[in-house]
């Protein structure tokens, strides 16, 4: 994307009907380290790649528990993500207190989206620079949503956001038809495979990724390093054989990923 005279204010439309500040906010999401989510009928798995500034520092927390039945993975400005997580936790706990019942994730997601929309229509505000993958349960089962800085939200069977997420998306697109009836463990394995795609050859170990699970009868929790490493070890052997095929597929699909926003025509938020 290139600078232009309509991109200073979030409240300025371009002649093509775009709000550039909002699109720039979505760029910030693309720069963050990858986060993925996938769901079956009864479980949702969230995963993210841990990026640390240096070997000396710890990595940023990108997965947050919002309530026993809702969790969120973020990509982009982690500080904005933290603030939104606090808002979500507050909404959940207030609902629980008043109704002694868990807040349906579909309603939380709409409230979150409306909050993001406000920042796209006030000249003294800026859009949140974070994309959220919200995993949660409600009366109708397991759900995975993606909340955009633009204030849009979408429901997904599986999705990936952040840098090199296209590689993960390609993997998920190949496999998603099996997810609805997959077992919880298979779902976690698929999440790890998808994360591995975003690492582009780097070895997948439990220190570079975080996995969290929520499901019917299973409250949201982050899996501990040991368990994750065990699961990696269990399928890595099989993974060796799959390596060459995956690499070839990635070359072709990596290119359009960053360029999507810059092209003429449809603005990203309209999709």
């Amino acid at each position, binding site marked *: 994307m290139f600078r232009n005279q309509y991109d200073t204010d979030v409240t300025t439309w371009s002649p093509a009907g775009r709000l550039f500040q909002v699109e720039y906010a979505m760029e910030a999401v693309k720069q963050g380290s990858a986060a993925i989510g996938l769901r079956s009928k009864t479980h949702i798995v969230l995963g993210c790649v841990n990026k640390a500034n240096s070997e000396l520092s710890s990595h940023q927390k990108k997965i947050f528990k919002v309530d026993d039945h809702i969790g969120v993975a973020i990509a982009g400005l982690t500080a904005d993500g933290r603030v939104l997580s606090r808002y979500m936790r507050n909404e959940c706990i207030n609902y629980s207190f008043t109704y*002694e019942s868990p807040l349906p994730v579909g309603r939380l997601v709409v409230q979150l989206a409306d909050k993001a929309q406000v920042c796209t229509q006030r000249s003294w505000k800026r859009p949140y620079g974070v994309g959220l993958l919200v995993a949660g349960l409600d009366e109708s089962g397991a759900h995975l949503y993606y909340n955009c800085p633009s204030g849009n939200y979408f429901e997904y069977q599986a999705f990936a956001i952040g840098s090199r997420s296209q590689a993960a998306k390609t993997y998920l697109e190949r496999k998603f038809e099996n997810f609805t009836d997959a077992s919880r463990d298979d779902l976690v394995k698929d999440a790890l495979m998808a994360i591995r795609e975003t690492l582009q050859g780097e070895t997948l170990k439990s220190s570079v990724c975080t996995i969290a699970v929520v499901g019917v009868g299973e409250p949201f929790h982050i899996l501990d390093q040991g368990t994750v490493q065990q699961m990696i070890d269990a399928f890595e052997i099989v993974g060796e054989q799959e390596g060459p095929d995956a690499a070839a597929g990635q070359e072709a699909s990596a290119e359009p990923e960053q360029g999507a926003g810059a092209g003429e025509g449809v603005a990203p938020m309209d999709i």
Partner: protein
Amino acid sequence: MNFMASKQPENSLLGPEADSQRTLYPYVTGTSVVALKYKDGILMAADMGGSYGSTLRYKSVERMKPIGKHSLLGASGEISDFQEILRYLDELILYDNMWDDGNSLGPKEVHNYLTRVMYNRRNKFNPLWNSLVLGGVKNGQKYLGTVSMIGVNFEDNHVATGFGNHLARPILRQEWHENLSYEDGVRLLEKCMRVLLYRDRSAINKLQIAKITEEGMTISQPYSLKTYWEFSAFANPAQGAVGTW
């Protein structure tokens, strides 16, 4: 001489002038509500009387109303406060329906919402002068609970308000059991209502029985119970207790 008289803010509920702004006594009141769980759902009974002190002034007051798709609310106490509660719940259900998303507030959620409302009003010394019974069925789960004007709330297999607690609950404790049939449930409720009719002077012989199941809610047309006043003990009530009235 006025040494800096302490001034209340305009909306305060303290001080003599504010007394007209908050509920101190009830005026038009309903008497007991009795309810029990049975095989398919909840049965609830209440008479149709609205008393103005000791006068039985209004005789067609509906003290049980459906709430949303899954719940039934019965109230005793101040009728105008019951109407206010119905307005709160109407708004609550409206917003719930406006989400249009397949989720809906069930009886447990409504009961807890009412508990919060009643307790918060009590804390402001401006109570809604009611005892409420909330029953319903959602996803096969039966729910029956009660909230008082001071926010005391609990669930049970059978509940009652007011005089019902003293006269009906002992009968229910003896005779209620799991999986009552509809006919047995109605018979049991009528037994309770008959005792209340004999012994509660605010009760009138015109009642409704409401039923709520997974399918929905129905409320009977008003009817009367058969009573028998020729018991010999009624003929000379003071016989066994000289000086009583």
